[in-house]
């Protein structure tokens, strides 16, 4: 608990329709931590993650964002006509990254389908492409919504390794997850 605070929420709440999903959720995440969001389907994990990312408005409470973050939601953010290579190149350009794309494709085991349009990729290959974005630029905070979905065993281990390295290097991860995780969580938050 000695790392710097990367993000902090103070009694944040969310309302959907006329329903209060959660209220008074306070969370402080420091560098080095892996925080897992737990809760039944529909309990508000995605909603909370989107609030953390600044995508949804906070109905009540306050949120202090200190560090830049990467986002991976239920959807992968891929365009049908893009290939894994052009997708990663595109975001590398947007984010001003000089990382070698071939290296990222290699790391994500996407060498083979690197030039197949995303439309035709398998579910796991799409997910790997999206996860490749995390390697384009260093950002302290990773916000991941069920990131292990659709990955095979090798992919799971790969992602778990990425998360471990990231946290060891001073980053932090907040991830929504169901079931057993192949990673060591420093904390679990129930919603």
């Amino acid at each position, binding site marked *: 608990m000695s790392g710097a605070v990367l993000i902090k929420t103070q009694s944040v709440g969310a309302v959907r*329709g*006329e*329903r*209060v999903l959660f209220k008074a959720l306070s969370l402080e995440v420091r560098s080095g931590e892996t925080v897992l969001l737990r809760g039944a389907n529909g309990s508000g994990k995605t909603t909370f993650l989107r609030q953390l990312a600044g995508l949804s408005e906070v109905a009540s409470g306050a949120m202090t964002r200190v560090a830049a973050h990467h986002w991976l939601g239920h959807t992968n953010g891929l365009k049908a006509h893009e290939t894994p290579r052009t997708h990663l190149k595109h975001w590398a350009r947007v984010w001003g990254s000089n990382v070698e794309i071939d290296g990222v494709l290699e790391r994500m085991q996407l060498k083979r389908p690197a030039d197949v349009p995303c439309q035709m990729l398998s579910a796991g290959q799409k997910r790997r492409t999206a996860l490749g974005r995390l390697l384009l630029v260093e950002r302290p905070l990773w916000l991941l919504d069920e990131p292990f979905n659709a990955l095979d065993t090798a992919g799971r281990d790969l992602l778990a390794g990425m998360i471990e390295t990231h946290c060891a290097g001073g980053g932090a991860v907040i991830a929504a997850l169901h079931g057993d995780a192949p990673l060591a969580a420093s904390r679990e938050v129930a919603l």
Partner: protein
Amino acid sequence: MWSFLANPHRFMGFSRLAVPICFAIGALLIGWSLYNGLMVVPPDEAQGGDLMRAMFTHVPSAWLCMGLYAGLAAASFVWFVWRHELADVAARAIAPIGAGYTALCFVTGAIWGQKGWGQGWHNLILGDSRLMSVLVLFFLFLGYIALRAAMETRQKAAKAGAILAMVGLINVPIIKVSVDLWETTTIHQPSSVIRIGGAPEGAEAEEGQGMNPMYLQQLLWGFGGHGLLASALIFMLMRAEIYSQRSDRLLAARLEES
């Protein structure tokens, strides 16, 4: 008064009284202006004979529909900047009433024009700049209503509607300018009301369409009456909306318990 009413509870208290009062006075004024307009004042042969009696609805509704769009944009602005929930409720309520008065302006104008502009004048509805700008205004209202209806949640409808209403407001003068610059010979008469008080009698007569002060009086009664009627209708819609929001909340709370 507006900041006082911004509280929904106070609004409900205020409007419970305001609705019937506005209705009553509005109906009285409209009735009075219509009675005078339809029965008492002499028909003006230069302006379509008896048909010109449509004026006592036409002119107030023409003024109102423009005013209501401005009101819609203002309410949207208030909601967008300060998030006063009541402002959104108001915007939502103004839209159908505004569309209604725009339609009323058009219909009464058409009735009036039946004779004044001669047979076949309707050929020109789509070719007249004044008429076109009213039509475009109607579409701005319509687009606003349709957009709100298509959004899934109230919050989203409020925000999307506010963006459209505000952007639309700046578009209104542009449409006005462009339509006036458009090559048409408008057969619609220019504004004459404003000149009535100040201009000498002679100048009016010269124009051949001077407005009898007796007409003007009825016009103003009518305008006041329609203004009150519109307010009453808007307040009523707002009340209905607030009630439905409340009942939604109650229902949700009950679900939460069970």
